[in-house]
């Protein structure tokens, strides 16, 4: 979810978001990604709008203010968790040597 929110600082439609996730090394199945986007939108974390100007109609998603706030909190939580895990793994490596 964090990866999805990170990519939605700028407007993206589902398929382009999936491509961005694949390129970032976080592939996600379409069948999981699209319902997730709708759920985040229903929770008020994303805003969306249809664009039909060029090509087939596409729904573009973007972070809402609440989504931006949540992204900041999730990033902090993730960094803290990653730092803790890193510390544990380093201690474990030193102990096993």
């Amino acid at each position, binding site marked *: 979810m964090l990866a999805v929110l990170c990519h939605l600082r700028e407007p993206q439609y589902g*398929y382009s978001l999936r491509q961005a996730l694949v390129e970032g090394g976080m592939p996600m199945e*379409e069948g999981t990604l*699209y319902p997730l986007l*709708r759920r985040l939108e*229903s929770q008020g974390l994303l805003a969306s709008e249809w664009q039909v100007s060029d090509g*087939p109609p*596409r729904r573009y998603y973007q972070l809402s203010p609440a989504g931006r706030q949540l992204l900041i909190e999730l990033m902090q939580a993730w960094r803290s968790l990653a730092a803790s895990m890193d510390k544990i793994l380093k201690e474990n490596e030193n102990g096993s040597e």
Partner: protein
Amino acid sequence: MDPSKIIEAYVADVMRHLPRAARNDIGLELRGLLAEMLSERTGSDSCESEGELAIGMLREFGTPEETAARYIEPAFPIVPTHQTKSFALLAIAGVLVQWAVSLPAVFAGQPVSEWWFGKGLGALWWPGFMALAALASSWLRHKGYYTRTWSPPRVDHEHFDRRILILALFAFATGTAVIASLPLIIAWLPEPQAGFFELDQGFLLFRAPLASILWLGQFGLLYAVQAADRWTGVTRRLALICDLLWVALLVWWLTGGPIFRLEATDGFVKSILGFVLLVVGLSMMVRVYRQATRIRVPAAPA
């Protein structure tokens, strides 16, 4: 086959399983997604026709029901996960008990079809009632009308509540007085009421007095617990034996001949006693279960 028509048919099938308000929105988005997925595949794989590719891709994507389910918010559970097993067991046990009570009539000559379309199928009211009660309870929890907070029942589990002794004394005195004075009460009643409650002599002389002995035993046990101010392993086991004796006595009362001379009164009182038997049996099961779920320190290895 035209791949766009295959996708269109698939999306229409998904939409049928979605809430009406969200159908069009999701359908439009899903159609766009599938079209883009297909164009990606046709670009990388030219061995198969587009129609075959579309069918293969949609089969990988999941059945329309599965795809629709991904879009639907999970509903609140009717029976909480931790209660599923006991719910199923209680539902089955309730039906089996009713069948066990009504089936002897079939062995006594009642046609099976008459039993099945009467009390046989009628016993299914119980799981239906349980499901409705669970649904109501689940809805109340979901709406936030009913929340449970845990609070410790007693800090000392072995401590004896003196109010139980007073209740036991009251039950013992009332029960014994009722049994002892029944013949007098009946003699005092005018006809025809006296005939309704005339007790069977065999019951009055042999089976009824045992209840007073059991009440006395239970009262003595509770008095001993009160004197020690706590339950011990021995007193708990003795209480369980008392309950078992009650079950045996009630079974004897129900099966060992008439209690009242009048058949209608006898049947009515025995149905009440059957209910009492059920309550005593359930209370025993609960007590055994609670004792089994206590934390025990494992024995130290020899």
